[in-house]
């Protein structure tokens, strides 16, 4: 699998995401936001955490309009895989590839701590290494992770089984405890928690590793 990790000014989890993908066996190319094209043959794009463009205007809004994001949207529309973590999730909602928006945390605080996530019954390659209902521990580190969708969209996400992860104890006020959602074709996943920060023993846990391994297995078979 060939993965591209996008680097914006202010990204700070780009290397972590690259290391997690490489550990799973992927070839990883780092791609600067001013590039207009993804490297040829990229199967999967990772949009990392951080504070792209200093969170100016809205988290992810400027990044979502950067040159490379037009190629990321085209990649997704061709059926390519995209994983957005934290700021990457914010960028994906701003591009419109994923529904909803991320608001300021309900308690107005930046929250940085491990949280328990429930793996939902969501048919996507990202969750192949988990069982529905399984509870995993993965860190969050965000100020604006309070997920919002309106009631109609929430009903649609539920009907279509597109909620990937829920918080066991909602830390930020997200609608329906949502921590991550997938696109209609299930190939774009956005999530606030950081699986790449729980991917090897030195991190204090490996609950995030199965996501990268599952993705790798699925794409190796494709």
């Amino acid at each position, binding site marked *: 699998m060939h993965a591209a990790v996008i680097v914006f000014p202010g990204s700070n989890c780009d290397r972590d995401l690259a290391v997690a993908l490489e550990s799973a066996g992927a070839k990883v190319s780092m791609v600067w936001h001013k590039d207009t094209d993804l490297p040829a043959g990229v199967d999967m794009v990772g949009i990392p955490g951080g504070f792209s463009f200093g969170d100016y205007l809205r988290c992810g809004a400027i990044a979502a309009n950067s040159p490379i994001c037009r190629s990321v949207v085209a990649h997704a529309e061709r059926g390519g895989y995209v994983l957005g973590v934290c700021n990457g999730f914010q960028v994906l*909602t701003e591009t419109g590839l994923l529904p909803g*928006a991320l608001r*300021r945390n309900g308690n*107005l605080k930046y929250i940085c701590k491990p949280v328990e996530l429930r793996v939902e019954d969501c048919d996507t390659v990202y969750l192949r290494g988990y069982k529905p209902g399984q509870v995993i521990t993965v860190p969050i580190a965000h100020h604006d992770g309070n997920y919002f969708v309106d009631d109609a969209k929430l009903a649609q996400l539920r009907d279509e089984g597109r909620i990937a992860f829920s918080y066991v104890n909602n830390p930020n006020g997200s609608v329906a405890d949502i921590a991550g959602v997938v696109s209609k074709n299930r190939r774009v996943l956005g999530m606030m928690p950081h699986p790449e920060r729980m991917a090897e023993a030195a991190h204090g846990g490996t609950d995030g590793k199965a996501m990268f391994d599952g993705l790798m297995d699925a794409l190796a078979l494709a």
Partner: protein
Amino acid sequence: MKAKVYVMLKEGVLDPQGAAVQHALGALGFDGVEGVRQGKVIELDLATGTTEATVREMCEKLLANTVIESYRIEM
């Protein structure tokens, strides 16, 4: 010419910053503040002849996230 764009969270979208400001005003002894909503104002210096329709397009594409925000333009 100048334009001002007012961006606010939509009615029905919880505004935790507005709620915190309301709470702080109450703590300072200002009674009767029944609600606070916090938004932002964006001032644009525009070339003569720029239409409100163009500013509207700027709002839709970048200045506001219409999933959660509404906007109002003053030209």
